[in-house]
């Protein structure tokens, strides 16, 4: 087992470090955590992209790319994520592990330094962000928000969340709002950036062959000059335990296939709950795997769709079912999806279904340890939620959860919102 250590480097700055020899690369990330709010989300969402455009020492894309090429084609990606009610803003980088460099030079120090430079010392004009970069990145952010409609499956999922969690922080789009982009200026963004640097929690991550002491030193050095003025706490994610009468939303787009998404509240069960492993098992039994009720019935038995699956938003306490069906089959699919939930609530499972669901859940947790990127995302989410449990510990809890606990989790689900994206009538 690769040891995971968590170290506080500065006030409100934490490093999660995984020491392992098994990968060819090292992955590092720097992420600011801030409350997800409608009035700041748009400005926040542009910042990683704007910072990625240039720094004092590398003022444009070409010079950043050249530096990354020298670091064996390393990557530094701007990231905007939603973790519960927090908006996570920053960079994730992947670099060749020092063991494989051609001339024995170390990559880690230079990689961390470059990332720290992008975060802390942007390319500026007259004491604010460069107007050209700002204008271009505003255009890109608009494109990014508008492009969400291009992936219909994801779009239907996003729309469900917006509808279901309207009025809750979680209902805010991680990229913000289209109408707020226009008003962003180099000066207003600069002020927002200073505010974030001084008052947001900063989560750092490293996974690779370097010893933790060295990693601490390298990150500390890369972050020299980070202002720290307090107020790093994140509010707890709002969890709505149950829903009353289901709400229905239907929208029309020029599509060939309908997209059905259904959102359920989990009775207040989240990643922080003792019942969380039971909810994971319940999800696997219901729609999380190819042995699940949804896959075997909605797809295999009734041939209604190519995909019908469920997934849990673990920090929010919400389960989503999604499927792509012919417009005319919406009702049929919805009825079957709910009928299968009833079967779960009655505990109608063959032993192989239970075994398959459990093995899949355990395996999907353990394989997180084989992926540097998935581990990074895991630890970021845990940090935002104030949790310390690792994938392996959670897998152990899944091993010992009883079937009737999973049935109880199924009984706790309540349907909140049904969203259907349908085509234009011919």
């Amino acid at each position: 087992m690769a040891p995971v250590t968590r170290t506080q480097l500065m006030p409100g700055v934490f490093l999660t470090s995984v020491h392992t020899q098994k990968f060819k690369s090292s992955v590092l990330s720097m992420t600011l955590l801030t409350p997800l709010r409608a009035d700041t989300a748009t400005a926040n969402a542009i910042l990683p992209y704007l910072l990625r455009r240039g720094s004092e020492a590398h003022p444009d894309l070409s010079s950043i790319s050249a530096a990354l090429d020298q670091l064996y084609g390393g990557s530094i990606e701007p990231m905007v994520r939603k973790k519960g009610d927090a908006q996570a803003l920053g960079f994730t980088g992947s670099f060749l592990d020092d063991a494989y460099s051609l001339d024995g030079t170390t990559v880690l120090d230079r990689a961390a330094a470059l990332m720290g430079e992008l975060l802390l010392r942007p390319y500026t004009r007259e004491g604010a962000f460069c107007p050209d970069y700002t204008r271009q990145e505003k255009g890109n952010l608009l494109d990014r928000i508008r492009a969400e409609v291009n992936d219909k499956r994801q779009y239907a999922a996003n729309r469900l969340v917006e509808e279901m969690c309207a009025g809750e922080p979680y209902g805010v789009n991680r990229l913000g709002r289209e109408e707020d982009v226009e008003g962003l200026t180099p000066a207003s963004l600069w002020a927002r950036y200073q505010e974030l640097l001084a008052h947001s929690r900063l989560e750092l991550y490293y996974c690779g062959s370097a010893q933790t002491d060295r990693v601490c030193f390298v990150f500390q050095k890369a972050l020299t000059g980070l202002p720290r003025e307090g107020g790093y706490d994140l509010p707890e994610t709002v969890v709505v335990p149950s829903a009353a009468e289901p709400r229905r939303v239907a929208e029309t787009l020029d599509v060939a296939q309908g997209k059905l998404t259904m959102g359920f509240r989990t009775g207040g069960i989240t990643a922080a709950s003792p019942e969380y492993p039971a909810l994971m098992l319940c999800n696997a039994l219901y729609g999380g795997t190819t042995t699940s009720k949804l896959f075997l019935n909605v797809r295999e038995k009734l041939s209604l769709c190519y995909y019908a699956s469920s997934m849990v938003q673990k920090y929010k306490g919400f389960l989503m079912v999604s499927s792509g069906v012919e417009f005319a089959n919406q009702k049929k699919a919805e009825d079957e999806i709910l009928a299968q939930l009833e079967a779960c609530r009655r505990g109608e499972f063959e032993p192989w279904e239970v075994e398959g669901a459990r093995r899949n859940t355990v395996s999907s947790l353990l394989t997180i340890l084989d992926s540097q990127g998935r581990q990074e995302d895991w630890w970021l989410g845990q940090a935002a939620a104030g949790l310390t449990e690792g994938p392996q510990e959670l897998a152990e809890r899944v091993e010992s959860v009883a079937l009737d606990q999973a049935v109880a989790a199924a009984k706790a689900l309540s349907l909140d919102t049904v969203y259907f994206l349908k085509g234009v009538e011919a």
Partner: protein
Amino acid sequence: MDQIRYERVGETLHRCVLPNGLSIYVDKKPGFQKSYAFFATNYGGMDMRFKLDGVWHDTPAGVAHYLEHKTFDTEDGNALQDLAANGASPNAFTSTSITGYYFESTEKFEENLRILLSFVSVPYYTQESVDKEQGIIGQEIRMGDDEPETQVFYGMLEGLYAHNPIQVNIAGTVESISHITAETLNLCHRAFYEPANMVLCVAGDVDPERVAEIAREVLPREGRAPVERDYGEAEPPQAAKALWEKEMAVSTPIFQLGFKDTPPQKGGEWLRWNLTGQLACEALLGNSSPLYARLYAQGLINESFGYGCEAYPGAAFLCAGGESRDPEAVREAVLAEGTRIAQEGLDEALFQRLKRAAYGNAVRGLNSFENICVNQAMGHFQSYEYLSFPEVYDSVSKADVEELLRRAVTRERTTLAVIRPKEARA
């Protein structure tokens, strides 16, 4: 089994060929939780016309993919469920030239391997189950109809090629698959699922000798030579069409540019073409090329921009695409840059930097078991050793890249495919 050490990438490969003709490769990966097995046949969407037992057969578009879906059926049920019940994550894909079945598991590796080898090699297609699959695959095709990236890529292939079957949708159409029967599937299984036309690639902390023993036990003892295929007459060097267009419900135009090249010979030449083609893309319009920075700053491309090169029997091309408000302007800029490089040559320092980055990226790619196994399989089918890429990179010169660009990036070899936004008639 033979053992080959690829010192420069730190990998050890065990390999052998069974008497029935099946080639086996095992990449030993100590320290990982999961093991990954990939069993593939050299048979994909483009293999529609072939000669078996002296008779030429023409099969409908989409058979290879349909076969992939139905191959999971066994006399006792469904192998997907058998594997999933063991906690494995099984799946399969059909590409233009290969079909691969795989699983990833953290336990019961040998049992899972037996299931994999058995269900793929033993056909069990009933007319009833073949008929039932029409609905599921029909929905998969409809889903693809709504995916602009899928549509625009096929559009580009249609533009580049006069008749090569790589332009035919791998899944077929709702109409073409309606002609598929259990008899069609049996015929194609007999033609292409022969050990000598297949390869087994494994990555993980497993015993290579056991992998070979299990394959010997489960698979037929004897095999026969692969069938002859027909992809039609050789393609002319120029693109069939300069422009391909379609309207869909998208937010901004989505384009794909294709540049038709001369297909490489099998063997080391194939790998060399792939690596040279990738470098040519990087030099012409890659993330750290001068053109990329210019197009990005002009707002003509954004983060969705991607590029690559692909080679198939009788077809090879470079391509690049993404979202753009003016795809024609992107095409003109790329052609002009191609002409500039053809005249002035590449900057030596840029070329060395790009090579270093490409090498680092390829090494980092070895973190992914799927990537290792799929590349190993493709290399086997085209008679080259994938893991020899560091040596091949050493031998690719600036002149090689310039020559490829001079040859392929010309107006008559270029196709532009564009999906334009259609106003929704709500």
